[in-house]
């Protein structure tokens, strides 16, 4: 659809927030007690932050929960039954104030979950999601969205993208049908707009992702992987905070004769991830797992899913306990 640009003043934004949260769950960023940023369901508008850099965790859990029940079962010697999850009970959620890297990740996740056959759990959650993005006026040394084809105000994944103005008001770009429905239902809050000066941060480009992808095609056996992963402790934090990591485990949990089969976040950084029952492990050392992580995101996914597996949020690097910096490594890879 044709996109529309409107002005929304700070006080109108509060009205919009309250209107949206009156009828739906709204998931918005707040400053937690430890000063870290986290997303919460239905916080009051006064607590919602517009000045956050990056939340500790990404927001992928709105479409890909940490733990998602796949079905319930009852199993005994005499009877086994399976009860489906009613996907129609998945509620509508408004994601409020997510930065462009995080909103772009929904497209990446879609390219995994809806590749070949559609994962209906993911697809339903995405269908019920309305995304109100927020362009960044802050960035730090870990940010590298501009290296992966995005920017601090890219529209990918947003239904409405809010961009801050110097005076505290916002530009609202109405980008999709879902966004337009919000405009139509609260049309009095949106004003027409002329030329404006957006208050958007600058993020320096660190590498060229196309060159990295091209380089990776011949880099499988390169000593780079060992040299650059010796300090990796395989903790999986990078995958845990990553907005696009989608690898999962499937497990059963039973109490008495009743139980559930669920999937939960997993990580290619774990040795158990690929361990065969026989004891054989195709990726038996950490350097092979680090290579898998980079290869998957920057080589296999562009080839297979037609999507880069990284949005440049910088969480994996800022959160790494041994200070492995993915952007630095990709920059180095580009030049090997």
């Amino acid at each position: 659809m044709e996109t529309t640009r409107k002005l929304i003043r700070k006080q109108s934004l509060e009205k919009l927030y309250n209107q949206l949260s009156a009828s739906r769950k709204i998931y918005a960023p707040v400053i937690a007690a430890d000063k870290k940023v986290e997303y919460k369901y239905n916080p009051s508008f006064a607590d919602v932050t517009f000045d956050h850099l990056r939340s500790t965790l990404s927001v992928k859990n709105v479409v890909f929960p940490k733990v998602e029940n796949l079905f319930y079962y009852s199993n005994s010697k005499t009877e086994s039954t399976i009860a489906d999850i009613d996907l129609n009970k998945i509620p509508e959620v408004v994601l409020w104030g997510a930065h462009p890297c995080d909103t772009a990740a929904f497209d990446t996740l879609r390219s995994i979950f809806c590749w070949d056959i559609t994962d209906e759990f993911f697809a339903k959650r995405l269908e019920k999601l309305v995304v109100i993005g927020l362009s960044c006026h802050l960035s730090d040394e870990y940010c590298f969205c501009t290296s992966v084809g995005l920017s601090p105000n890219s529209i990918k994944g947003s239904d409405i993208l809010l961009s801050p103005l110097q005076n505290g008001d916002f530009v609202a770009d109405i980008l999709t049908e879902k966004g337009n429905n919000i405009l139509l239902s609260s049309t009095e809050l949106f004003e027409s707009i002329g030329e404006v000066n957006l208050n958007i941060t600058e993020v320096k480009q660190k590498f060229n992702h196309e060159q990295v992808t091209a380089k990776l095609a011949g880099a499988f056996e390169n000593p780079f992987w060992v040299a650059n992963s010796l300090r990796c402790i395989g903790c999986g934090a990078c995958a845990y905070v990553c907005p696009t990591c989608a690898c999962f485990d499937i497990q059963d949990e039973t109490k008495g004769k009743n139980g559930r089969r669920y999937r939960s976040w997993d990580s290619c950084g774990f040795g158990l991830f690929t361990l065969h029952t026989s004891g054989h492990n195709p990726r038996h050392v950490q350097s092979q797992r680090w290579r898998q992580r980079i290869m998957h995101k920057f080589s296999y996914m562009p080839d297979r899913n037609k999507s880069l597996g990284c949005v440049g949020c910088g969480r994996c690097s800022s959160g790494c306990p041994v200070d492995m910096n993915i952007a630095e490594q990709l920059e180095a890879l580009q030049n090997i």
Partner: protein
Amino acid sequence: MSDSIYKPYLMEIESVIEETSDVRTYRLKFKNTADAEKFSFKAGQFGEYSVLGEGESTFCVASSPTRKEYIECTFRKAGRVTNALANLEPGDTVGFRGPYGNTFPIEQWEGKNLLYIAGGIALPPMRCLIWNTIDLRDKYKDITIVYGARTVGDLVYKHELKEWEERPDIKLITTVDPGGQTPDWKGEIGFVPAVLEKVAPSSKNTIAILCGPPVMIKFTMPVLKKLGFQDRDIYTTLENRMKCGFGKCGRCNVGKVFVCKDGPVFSYEQILTLPEEY
């Protein structure tokens, strides 16, 4: 399959065969007849077998698609799920999701000789294919099966080996590792590569299907090359740890190739293009 891609069919164990001390074969029937009617698969495909409460485990369908009333699976008691499976009895319930993965290109092989080479517990993933081509016997020329196990006790499908041995249109060579023979053992004694070299089947107009532990593959490949087999005429089936079976959970890939989607069947020509991640 029902609407959820993660929901297994419920199958009833119709019969159990104790193949060895730790290997069992189950014949499974769909509990829901509508499921049975819409289900179909081809040789080479695999499924996720589950015991509700214990989890899922991946193995190939071991029966032939030409036998439509049931599917069979053969598994070794090894981990949590297979141990739980092994504790079941006829009448008990097993979950099954599938079929997944690609298939052996048996239509392309019509009019050719087939050479099956299997070691140990790797005969089950090949058994589907063997029966499939035996059931379509007039479409293929010579069928030769070379099967080896560590000991006589470790040979699976003993009842079928006897049947294949007695058939005039199948050449079966069984072997056990030195020391693995019993006093009345009539088969070969020696490792599969050595026995293959001794039997020396012709590579002319022949497809070789090879399945076994990595060490067997490693030493059998040079023998096949020596016999004149081209990489494109040698097939195998890979296994890697899997959870979903349809290219999403992210763990079975070998380089950019998903064993669950692009495999499990690969020609050796394809294998040579893959990194060693299997």
